[in-house]
């Protein structure tokens, strides 16, 4: 089973997770920029974070044989804080970067006018930079939030084909599918989808344009949920090809619209005169363990 986790916050995870993910078949991830749990107080705090998503985190992922891309944006929650919104002016230079495969996660949290403005501006940024958009749908007042999101997407310059509506569930999937966007489901303990419900949704709506992610982050979450959904699908009678469509080909097709997806996990990042540099990969001969700090 080859797995592409299209939404996971690896900055919040350990190298044990990377190891376990690789063992479960994960070969590629997309890490959307998001809220860190602790509110930021300046745009600089965003840019340091964006730099980490374009520097240290792909390096860490590559050590475990996982290709790492990211989506960058001002997240919905912090779109409401005037100390953070100036980061919108920094985004254009970041959206040029090679590993940026979408603008995201954008969308609604509390559905405020400030969130309207940030969502509209960032959908336009995506269109301007030839990027798709990863649009999170709100946790509270979900169906209303989905409707407002779909309205905003219809009004923007992006084709719905270039929009991934994420954190969907049974109550929002119908209208999301009718919008023509790609459909993202987060399988996350307690608050979002679980494996059994995910299988039912796949039965009812089909695997076309469906992406499944773990959305694993600093909360109680599980970076192996993608693999567990694949196993649940097989147990429920889906074929290997359906699993591959949902866990690999769909996320590849969506993010490949950026023209920037590279799945050949280049150890090239660390080659020297054609020789791949061993980066303290566990088990590599004669190489001391990587220095953690």
């Amino acid at each position: 089973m080859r797995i592409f986790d299209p939404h996971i916050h690896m900055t919040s995870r350990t190298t044990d997770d990377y190891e376990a993910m690789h063992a479960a078949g994960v070969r590629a991830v997309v890490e959307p920029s998001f809220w860190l749990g602790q509110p930021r107080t300046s745009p600089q705090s965003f840019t340091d974070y964006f730099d980490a998503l374009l520097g240290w985190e792909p390096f860490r992922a590559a050590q475990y044989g996982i290709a790492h891309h990211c989506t960058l944006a001002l997240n919905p929650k912090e779109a409401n804080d005037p100390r953070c919104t100036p980061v919108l002016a920094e985004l254009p230079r970041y959206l040029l970067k090679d590993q940026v495969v979408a603008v995201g996660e954008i969308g609604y949290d509390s559905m405020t006018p400030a969130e309207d403005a940030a969502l509209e501006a960032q959908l336009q940024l995506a269109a301007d930079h030839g990027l798709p958009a990863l649009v999170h749908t709100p946790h509270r007042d979900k169906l209303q939030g989905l409707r407002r999101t779909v309205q905003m997407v219809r009004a923007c310059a992006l084709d719905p084909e270039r929009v991934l509506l994420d954190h969907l569930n049974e109550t929002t999937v119908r209208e999301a599918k009718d919008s023509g966007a790609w459909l993202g489901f987060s399988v996350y303990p307690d608050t979002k989808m679980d494996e059994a419900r995910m299988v039912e949704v796949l039965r009812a709506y089909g695997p076309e344009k469906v992406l499944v992610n773990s959305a694993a982050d600093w909360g109680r979450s599980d970076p192996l949920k993608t693999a567990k959904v694949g196993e649940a699908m097989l147990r429920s009678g889906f074929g290997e090809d359906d699993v591959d469509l949902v866990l690999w080909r769909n996320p590849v097709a969506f993010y490949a619209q950026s023209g920037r997806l590279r799945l050949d996990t280049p150890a090239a990042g660390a080659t020297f005169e054609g020789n791949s540099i061993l980066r303290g990969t566990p088990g590599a001969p004669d190489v001391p363990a990587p220095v953690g700090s």
Partner: protein
Amino acid sequence: MTTVPARHDTPADTGAPGLPPGLDGPARAWLADALTEAARAAQAEADPGGTWQIRFAEAGRRCGPGHADAARVELLAAARPGVADLTALYRQGTAAERRAVLLALGRLEPAAAEGLALVEDALRTNDTSLVAAALGPYAAAHLPAHAWRHGVLKCLFTGVPVAAVAGLSARARGDGELGRMLRAYAAERTAAGRPVPHDLTRVLALTEEP
């Protein structure tokens, strides 16, 4: 100050200067145009649109990861950015862009104060590709002894082959202080029951040469 010629100086299988060998058609054409823009920027007082800097950012997806470093280094060599622009490209760069700036230092020869600030920044990271790129000909020529020794030691710590260190034999030869640091590190490895890297033995032998 003499510098070792950079690796990308002379493409072997092409007549076009600055085009890395092995680039396929569309990528070659793209890079040729980008190099022209960069050379134009070098002539101008300023590069108002900053187009070549956009090319610098997108070189990875245009040329492919295998050629991205070489393409970016050529762009830098053609544009010859001033030290302020070079610093900004590094500071605002992805890991790959930062690596290209480091690889180009030997050809651009920025003033030591600014150039070394970038080398030292890279040597503080744990990204081995940055550490390796930082220890090129520019560091060989300009990096003060203490920082250079710590750079070599960091290679041994993080598994960067010391073959990546430009001018290693010349600088390590007879360096008693580096020898002391290496012996101490070897003792620490041995005490922990861990193997001593071959590269350590190799550099240690160099320090013991007269």
